[in-house]
C-alpha cells in the first residue's frame, strides 16, 4: 500500500505542473481525473489502515486518523474539480470584446487550475506527512497557496480578504512554529537531539516527556493552528476569505482546510494527553470550542451575505468538533471524526449550491434573492436538503455524528457542556434555516429594486457541471446517515481509539 501513499503525493503535483502549460480543456480534464483518482486512492487505503500504520520513503505515514482527514479532502477535491468546469464556463463577464475576453479567460483559468491543484495537493500532504515539523510546513503551504486563490477574482473585496487572510494566518502559523520547536525541545529531553519529530517515537515517549514544554506547545498549537481552524478569537479572517474566494475554493477552504488544521491540533492533543493526562488538553479545547460556537451561532442569526453565512456555519462546526474532542468519550470521538467527513460533504455542497445561486442572481446579498426553488429546479431542492443536513436533521450524516457527540457527552458526565452545545446548535439551526428557506421559497426579494431582476430570470440551471457534484454530495450524506459502510465505521472507531489515550 506504500505505493498508493507515494502516488497520492506525487500525482496531484504532476497535474499542477501540467496545468501550468496545458490548455484550458486539458487542464480541466486532468484536474477532474486527478480528483477522482485521488478519492479512489484514499478509499483504497481504508481497509489497510484500520489494522496497521503504513509508511513510505521515510517521510510519509498514514494511520486511521490521517486517512479520515484524507478522505474528506479527496472527496471535496473530486467534486469541486467537476464543479469548477461549470464554474469557469459561466464566469465570462458580459460586454467585453470577444477577443479580449477569451485572452482574459485563458489566463484566469490557467491560474485557477494551477492554484486549485496545488491547494488540493498541499492539503493531501498535510495528513500524510510523518512528523510535527513536516506537518507545519504542509499547513503553511496550504496558507500561502490559498491566499493567492482568494485574491484570484481581483476585486477590491478579494484583495482585502486575501491580505487579511495571509497576514493573520501566517502570524497564527508563526505561533504554530513556536509550538513545533517547543515540542521538539520536549522530545529532545527523552529522545536525544537529532530526532526529526516523527509521530511514532514521540507518541511512544509521550509518557516521559517533561510537563511544562508539552503544556506550552499544546496551548501554542491550539492558538496557532486554531487560527486556521477558525476558533474564536482568531477566526476573523475566515468569513472574509470564504466569501471572496471563487466558489470551488470556498468549498475546499471550508470543508477541507479547516479540518486539516484541526488534524494538526489533534496530533498535538495525542502527545499532550500522553504526557499530561486528559484533563488539561480537554479543558483548553472545551473553552475554545464553546466560545467559537457561541460567536458563530449569534452571527448566523443576522447575516446578509450568503457565503459569509456559510462561513460562520463553518466556525460553528469547528466549535462542535473541539467540544466533541474535549468530551473524551470514545463515542463522542467517533462522532467527531464522522462529523469531519459529513461536514466536508455538507459544507462543500452548501457552498456549491450557494455558488449556483450567486451565478443566477448575480449577487451575494440574501435580501436580493427569492424564489430559488422555482428558478433552479435542481439546485434549489438540493440546497434545501444540504442546509437541513448542515442543521443536523435526520436522515443525513451530520445527524448521526452530532447525536453520537451529544450521547457521548452525556454519557461521560459533561452535562453542562453538552446542554450548552445543544442549545447553541439549535440557535445556529434557526439562523441558517430561516435565511435559506426565505431565499428559496419567498416569491419576491426583500429589496424593492431587485424585484425586476428576479422576475426577468428564466427557469433553468446555469450549468449541469454544477449540479452533478451536489447530487453526489447529498447521496454521500444520506449514505453516512443511513447505511454507513462497515469498513468506514471500523476506520472511525480505530481512529478514535488512537485519540483515546490508546497506543497509536
Amino acid at each position: 500500500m506504500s505505493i498508493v501513499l507515494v502516488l497520492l503525493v506525487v500525482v496531484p503535483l504532476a497535474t499542477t505542473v501540467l496545468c501550468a502549460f496545458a490548455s484550458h480543456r486539458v487542464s480541466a480534464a486532468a484536474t477532474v481525473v486527478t480528483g477522482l483518482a485521488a478519492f479512489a486512492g484514499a478509499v483504497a487505503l481504508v481497509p489497510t489502515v484500520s489494522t496497521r500504520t503504513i509508511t513510505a520513503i521515510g517521510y510519509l505515514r498514514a494511520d486511521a486518523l490521517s486517512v479520515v482527514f484524507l478522505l474528506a479532502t479527496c472527496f471535496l477535491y473530486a467534486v469541486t474539480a467537476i464543479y469548477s468546469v461549470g464554474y469557469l464556463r459561466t464566469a465570462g463577464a458580459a460586454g467585453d470584446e470577444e477577443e479580449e475576453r477569451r485572452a482574459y479567460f485563458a489566463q484566469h483559468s490557467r491560474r485557477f487550475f494551477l492554484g486549485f491543484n496545488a491547494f488540493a495537493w498541499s492539503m493531501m500532504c498535510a495528513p500524510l506527512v510523518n512528523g510535527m515539523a513536516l506537518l507545519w510546513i504542509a499547513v503553511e503551504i496550504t496558507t500561502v497557496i490559498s491566499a493567492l486563490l482568494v485574491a484570484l477574482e481581483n476585486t477590491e473585496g478579494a484583495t482585502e480578504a486575501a491580505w487579511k487572510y495571509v497576514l493573520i494566518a501566517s502570524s497564527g502559523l508563526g505561533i504554530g512554529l513556536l509550538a513545533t520547536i517547543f515540542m521538539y525541545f520536549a522530545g529532545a529531553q527523552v529522545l536525544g537531539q537529532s530526532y526529526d519529530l516523527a509521530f511514532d517515537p514521540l507518541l511512544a515517549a509521550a509518557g516521559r516527556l517533561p510537563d511544562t514544554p508539552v503544556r506550552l506547545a499544546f496551548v501554542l498549537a491550539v492558538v496557532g493552528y486554531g487560527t486556521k481552524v477558525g476558533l474564536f478569537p482568531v477566526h476573523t479572517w475566515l468569513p472574509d476569505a470564504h466569501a471572496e474566494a471563487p466558489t470551488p475554493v470556498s468549498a475546499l477552504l471550508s470543508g477541507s482546510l479547516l479540518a486539516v488544521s484541526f488534524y494538526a491540533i489533534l496530533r498535538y492533543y495525542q502527545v499532550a494527553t500522553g504526557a499530561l493526562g486528559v484533563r488539561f488538553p480537554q479543558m483548553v479545547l472545551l473553552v475554545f470550542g464553546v466560545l467559537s460556537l457561541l460567536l458563530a451561532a449569534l452571527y448566523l442569526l443576522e447575516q446578509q451575505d450568503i457565503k459569509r453565512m456559510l462561513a460562520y456555519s463553518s466556525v460553528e462546526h469547528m466549535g462542535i468538533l473541539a467540544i466533541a474532542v474535549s468530551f473524551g468519550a470514545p463515542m463522542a470521538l467517533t462522532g467527531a471524526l464522522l462529523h469531519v467527513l459529513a461536514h466536508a460533504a455538507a459544507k462543500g455542497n452548501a457552498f456549491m449550491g450557494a455558488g449556483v445561486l450567486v451565478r443566477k442572481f448575480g449577487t451575494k446579498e440574501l435580501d436580493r434573492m427569492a424564489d430559488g426553488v422555482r428558478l433552479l429546479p435542481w439546485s434549489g431542492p438540493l440546497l434545501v436538503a444540504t442546509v437541513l443536513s448542515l442543521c443536523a436533521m435526520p436522515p443525513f450524516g451530520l445527524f448521526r455524528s452530532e447525536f453520537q457527540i451529544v450521547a457521548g457527552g452525556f454519557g461521560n458526565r459533561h452535562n453542562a457542556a453538552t446542554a450548552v452545545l445543544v442549545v447553541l446548535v439549535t440557535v445556529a439551526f434557526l439562523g441558517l434555516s430561516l435565511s435559506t428557506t426565505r431565499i428559496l421559497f419567498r416569491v419576491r426579494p426583500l429589496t424593492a429594486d431587485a424585484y425586476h431582476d428576479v422576475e426577468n430570470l428564466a427557469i433553468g440551471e446555469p450549468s449541469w457541471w454544477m449540479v452533478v457534484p451536489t447530487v453526489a454530495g447529498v447521496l454521500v450524506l444520506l449514505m453516512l446517515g443511513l447505511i454507513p459502510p462497515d469498513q468506514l465505521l471500523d476506520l472511525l472507531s480505530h481512529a478514535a481509539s488512537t485519540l483515546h489515550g490508546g497506543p497509536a
Partner: protein
Amino acid sequence: MSVLAAAPTAPSVFDGFANAVALVVLLLEFGMLRASLLRAQVRLYAGQSLAVSVLAVVVAIGHHVPELYVLAALSLALKVIVVPLLVMRLLRDADAEIAGSGALGVASEVLISIVVAAFGFFAVGVLNIHSNVLPTAALSLSIAVVLVAFILMVVRRDVVSQAIGFFSLENGVSLASLVVASGMPLILEVAFLFDLLVAVVVFGVLMRTHQRRSRSLSTEHLDRLRG
C-alpha cells in the same frame, strides 16, 4: 528578576555574548516599531536578521554544531539580502509617500511594547525551561521579540510595515529555535527557510496587487468586509 539571579556564577563570555546579541535583536525590533520611514524599517529588519545569523554562527562555534554554519549562511542570504531587496524594489516601484502610519503616537506604541515585552520576558523566565546550548535569558528575549512584532503589526496601517512585522516575528521564532532546538535536523531547518521564501513571494504578490488596486500602500480603507 529570578531569571537573571538563577545563574549561580558570573556568566561566561559565551553566555554574555549570546545574551548581548539576543538583546540587539530585541532593540532592533523596537527600532522598527518607532522608525517612521518604511526604508528605515526594512534596513533595521536586515540588521536584525544579520544579528540572528551571527548568533547562529556563535552557537556553531561554541558548541561545535557544523549544521548551523549552513543554516546561518542560508538565512544570511535569504533574510539579510533577498527579502530586503524584494521589499525595497516594491517600495521603489510603488513610489508612495508613507511616513508614520502608526495608529498611535510613537511614545504610546513604545510604552505598550515595553509592557508587553516585559510580560513575555518574565512569563517565559518562570517556566524553568533550560537549554544547554544558550542561556535562558535568550529564550525570554526571543518571546519578547515575537510579542513586540505583534504590536508592530497591530499599530501600523500599511502593508509593508505589516509584512515586515510578520518577517521579524519569524526572526523571533528563529531566535527561540536557536535556544531550544538548535539540534533540529538541518533538513527541517532548511525546509522552514524555504517555506519562508514562499511566504515572502506570496506576500510580495499580494502587496503588489494591493498597491495596483488602491494606488497606495496604506491599509486604512481595508474595512469594507465586516459582520
